[in-house]
């Protein structure tokens, strides 16, 4: 599926919202999975409450808890789709008292300047 004339663009997915309270986290992930087939240069960043999407130990099912499916394990499947560049915002983590060991997946922590640089290098930015 790179039949788009061989163009490879830098795609950035920006996730700034908490899971479950709204659907954006889940439907963002659905785009990432479909998008993986297009063999673009994909990065995901998690900023503000978006970092909570990656929190370990999420626990809910359609028949228990809040009655909504837990989709957090899908983040761990991203590697299998060659989606490996995941970044979290340092300040967002600190404000929430989170460290990378609280998260489901391996991420790189970026400070303000590094995050701004990363964003400025992109071709297409999808915001959720």
């Amino acid at each position, binding site marked *: 599926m790179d039949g788009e004339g061989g163009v490879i663009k830098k795609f950035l997915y920006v996730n700034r919202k908490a899971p479950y309270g*709204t*659907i954006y986290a889940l439907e963002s992930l659905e785009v990432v999975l479909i998008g993986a087939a297009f063999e673009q240069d994909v990065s995901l960043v998690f900023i503000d409450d978006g970092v909570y999407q990656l929190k370990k130990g999420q626990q809910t099912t*359609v028949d228990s808890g809040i009655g909504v499916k837990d989709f957090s394990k899908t983040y761990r499947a991203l590697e299998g789709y060659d989606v490996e560049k995941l970044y979290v915002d340092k300040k967002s983590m600190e404000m929430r008292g989170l460290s990378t060991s609280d998260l489901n997946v391996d991420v790189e922590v970026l400070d303000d300047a590094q995050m701004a640089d990363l964003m400025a290098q992109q071709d297409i930015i999808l915001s959720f």
Partner: protein
Amino acid sequence: MKFSIMVNEGPYQHQSSDSAYQFTKAALEKGHEIFRVFFYHDGVNNATCLTVPPQDDRHVVNRWSELSKKYNLDLVVCIAAAQRRGILDDNEAKRQGKNASNIAEGFRISGLGQLIEAGIQADRLVVFGD
């Protein structure tokens, strides 16, 4: 005790309808009476019969319909908000010259007065929204 519930957001996009459902179900299971559930703003989108969510996900609309059936719940959709957003029953569809209606089982369309009445008649009004 008698509760009324107001739901201001549609299915899936926000958790509001899920929370309202869980609250309503818990209240009924504790023996409370639900005078009415009123769907307003995008909340009217909870009343469409056309949703086909993934099989491993909850079915927000059917959940409400089933709860309504089990407990004889009054699920009221605001007519003005519904017209803006494309939720119609057979009568409204005919009146508006539309060739389809999409209201789900257990829901009825009525005016905003039903919300005020829900506030007057119930002991508590609980609002779920964004």
